C-alpha cells in the first residue's frame, strides 16, 4: 500500500517522542532526578539512553572523561611555606614538538656559574594558535606540562597565556586526572626506589643510608 513506508517511519518518531515521557515517569517513580544530576547526564550518554538526548548546556554540562584535553597548563608543587616549585626545567621539548609552534620559553643562565637555571624565566602559550593536540604533555619528561579540562575560554581579545595564567597546582591536576596522577606518582616512586637501591648497592660496604624520598 502506498504510504505504508511513511506510516512505518512515523511510528519510529512517535515511539521516540513517547520514550522521553515514559523515561521521565519511570525516573520519577524510582524517586531519582533525570535532569541536572550526574547520574542523569551519565545515563543520557549511555547505551541505555532513550527519548530525549540533549544536555542543557550551560545548566548541565557533559561529564568529561579523564583524558579530555584542552589548552596546556604548567604544574607546580606547593610547599608548606607557600613557595611554588615549578616542575618545568625549560628543556624545550614541548616547544620543539609543538606542531603549530605556539609555545615560547625563555631560559636564563645563572649569572655566576653561567649554567642554565632549571626553571623557565618566562613561558608563553599562544592559545589562539594551540591546536590542543596534547603532544607537549605527552612528551614532557618531567610531567610538568599537562592538558587542562577548562574549555570555557572564549574571549574578546587574543589569548596569549603567560606563566601567571598557565601555572596551576598539582592538587588541581590530581583533581582532574586522578588516574594519570596515580600512575605517574607510582612511576616516580618506583624510579626513586630503584635509584635508592642502586645507591645502596654502590655503597654496600658503607652503612646503608635510609632511602631519601
Amino acid at each position: 500500500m502506498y504510504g505504508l513506508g511513511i506510516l512505518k517511519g512515523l511510528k519510529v518518531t512517535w515511539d521516540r517522542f513517547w520514550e522521553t515521557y515514559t523515561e521521565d515517569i519511570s525516573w520519577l517513580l524510582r524517586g531519582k532526578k533525570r535532569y541536572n544530576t550526574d547520574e542523569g547526564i551519565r545515563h543520557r550518554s549511555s547505551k541505555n539512553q532513550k527519548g530525549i538526548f540533549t544536555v542543557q548546556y550551560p545548566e548541565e554540562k557533559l561529564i568529561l572523561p579523564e583524558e579530555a584535553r584542552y589548552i596546556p597548563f604548567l604544574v607546580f608543587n606547593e610547599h608548606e611555606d607557600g613557595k611554588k616549585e615549578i616542575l618545568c626545567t625549560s628543556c624545550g621539548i614541548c616547544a620543539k614538538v609543538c606542531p603549530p609552534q605556539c609555545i615560547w620559553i625563555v631560559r636564563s643562565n645563572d649569572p655566576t656559574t653561567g649554567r642554565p637555571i632549571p626553571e623557565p624565566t618566562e613561558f608563553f602559550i599562544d592559545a589562539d594558535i594551540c591546536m590542543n593536540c596534547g603532544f607537549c604533555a605527552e612528551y614532557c619528561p618531567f610531567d610538568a606540562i599537562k592538558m587542562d579540562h577548562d574549555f570555557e575560554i572564549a574571549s574578546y581579545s587574543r589569548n596569549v597565556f603567560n606563566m601567571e595564567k598557565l601555572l596551576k597546582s598539582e592538587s588541581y591536576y590530581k583533581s582532574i586526572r586522578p588516574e594519570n596522577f596515580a600512575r605517574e606518582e607510582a612511576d616516580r616512586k618506583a624510579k626513586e626506589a630503584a635509584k635508592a637501591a642502586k645507591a645502596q648497592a654502590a655503597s654496600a660496604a658503607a652503612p646503608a643510608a635510609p632511602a631519601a624520598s
Partner: protein
Amino acid sequence: MTAPASTLTIDLVARFPGIVTADARPGFTGFIVEKDSLIQVATAIRDEFGFDLLTAVTGVDYFPENKMEVVYHAYRTTGGPGLTFKVQVPRVDPVEVPSLINLWSGVDFQEREAWDLLGIRFTGHPDLRRILMWEGFEGHPMRKDWKEGFYEEDTKPFKSRWPEGNFYMAEDKNPFKDNLTFPTNFDPEKWIPEGDALLYGSLARYTVKQEGGMSTDRIVINMGPHHPSTHGVFRAVMTLDGETIVGLKPVMGYLHRNHDKIGERNTYLQNMPFTDRLDYFNSMTNNFGYAITVEKLMKIPVAERAEYIRVIVSELSRIQNHLVFIGTLLNDLGAMYTPSLYAFEERELILDIFEAISGARMMCNYFRFGGVVRDIPDDVMQKIKDLVHDRLQAKTDELDSLLTENEVLVSRLKGVPMINAEDAIRYSVTGPVLRATGVPYDIRRADPYGIYDRFDFDVAVRHNGDLMDNYLIRIDEIRQSLRILEQAIKQIPQGPINSQKPAYQVRVPAGEAYGRIESPKGELGYYVVSNGKPNPWRYHVRPPSFVNVTALEKICIGTKIADFVALLAMLDMVMGECDR
C-alpha cells in the same frame, strides 16, 4: 574476487627498452618513463597490464637536483598492489608534461592541482586553470623556493621559540611587508579577476545549436559557495537548459590552507594532528593512513594490540561517518533535522568513546608510528562492546525502517542515475560511490593494510548505481563494520600498544612511500618522500573527496537541477579534505 597477488611481476623495462628505466634511487620503487613516450607507456599500462584505476597524480620538486617529477600511482580494480611510474623533467619553466586526461579522466583535477601548486604544465589538458589558489595568485606555492607570508624558517621547530622565546605576534613583526609578492604593475584597486572569464569560458563548450522548435537561452547559475547543501564552501557553476544541467564546473579552494606545504615544514610526528583536520569527521582514519605510510618508510612493525585498536577505532569512525552522511543527506532532501538528529545521537555515543581514549571528540590525534598513543581502558572497552552488541545494530535497523521504505525518499532517489561502473573507474572514483555501481573495490580487501585480512566481512556492493543504491550501500557498510567490530572486540589481545619507544622526533630513512586506506569516503592516500632529514621532503595527500568531485560534472550533466543537491550529497564530500 581472487586473492590479490602479493608481489608485482610487471616488467615495464623489458616491454619498453630504452624508454622506461627502473627507479634505482635507494628507497624508491617504480619506473621512470621518458616524457615523450608517456602516453604510449600509460596506454600500455592501462590496456595491456590492466591497471585501470589511476588513483594518484602528484608532482615533486627536487629543487637541489633541478628536477621536477610527476608521480602516478595506478591500480587494478580487481585488486593487488599498484604500479608507480614517474616522469622527470628539468626544472626550467615552462615545465611541461603530457596530460593523461584522454586515458584517465580522473586526472583532471589532480593535474590542475599540480599545475596550480607546482607549476607543472600538462600539455593537452583542456582546462588547465588554477584550482585551489585564487586567480591572480603569483607563483606556485609547493615549489621549494616559494616562501609564504609570515615566513619564518624552512622547517620546524623554529629557533625563535626556545631558549630565548620572547613572544611576538607574527603580524606585528611582519605586517604585509616581506614575503608578499605582487605581480608587476599590480594595483589591487583596479584588479579584476581573470579567472572568472576562463571559468565561464570553459562552460561555453556546452553550447549547442538549437535545431528547430523554440530556442531558449542558457542560464548560468552559481550554486554556492555559501549554499547549505554544499556542506561547507563549495561552488558549482552550472549552465542550464530549462531545468536540465548541460554544463557544470566545480569551483573550490575556499578552505585551502596548503596542508601539503605545512606538512613539509612539520616534522613527521607534527603532521599527525594536522591530518585530523583533513576530513574532520574521520580523524581516526586520517591518522591511520598517515601512520601506515610513515611506518612503510621507517620499516617498523606495529604492536599487535594496537593493530586491533586501529581497526576498532576506524570502523567506529566509518559507522559515525555514514550516520552523518545519512543525516545530512536527508537534511538536503528536505527532511529537516529529525533523521539527522537521530543519526547524530549514535554518533555522539561513538564520539564519547573517542574522547575517552584519545582526549578529543573529533581531532583525535590518536595514532603514533608503531602503534597508538593510549590503551583503551577496560571500562571504555566495555562501552564499545555494549554499543556494538546492544545498540548500534538495533539503531541501524531503526534508521532503516524510518527511512528506507519512505515513499517520498524512494521517489527522490530510486532510478535517478548517478554514474556507471565504467565512468566511475575512468574518473578515479573510489569508495561507496564506486561500489554502488557494482565494482567490488574496497582497499580493505583489494590491497589489505593493517590486519584487515584477518576479518570475515563482505564488501558491500550494489549494482544499479542510482541514488537509492548509493544510500543503501552506506547502511550495508554500517552493518559490515559492525561485523568487523564484533570480531575485533572478541580477538583483541593484551599487550603493549606501541612497538617503538615514545620519541618526539623519529628517524625516517630516505625513500618514498605511498600508503592508502579505505577511508569512509574512498581511497585516502598519502605520498611521502623522505631525504633522511627530520622533515619530509614531499608530503602529499590524495583526498577521496577531491578526486571524487572530478566526476561531478559527468554525474550531473543531463540531470535536473532539483537532483543536484542529492547528487552532491551522495559524493559525501568534506571541504576540509577537498580543499586541504
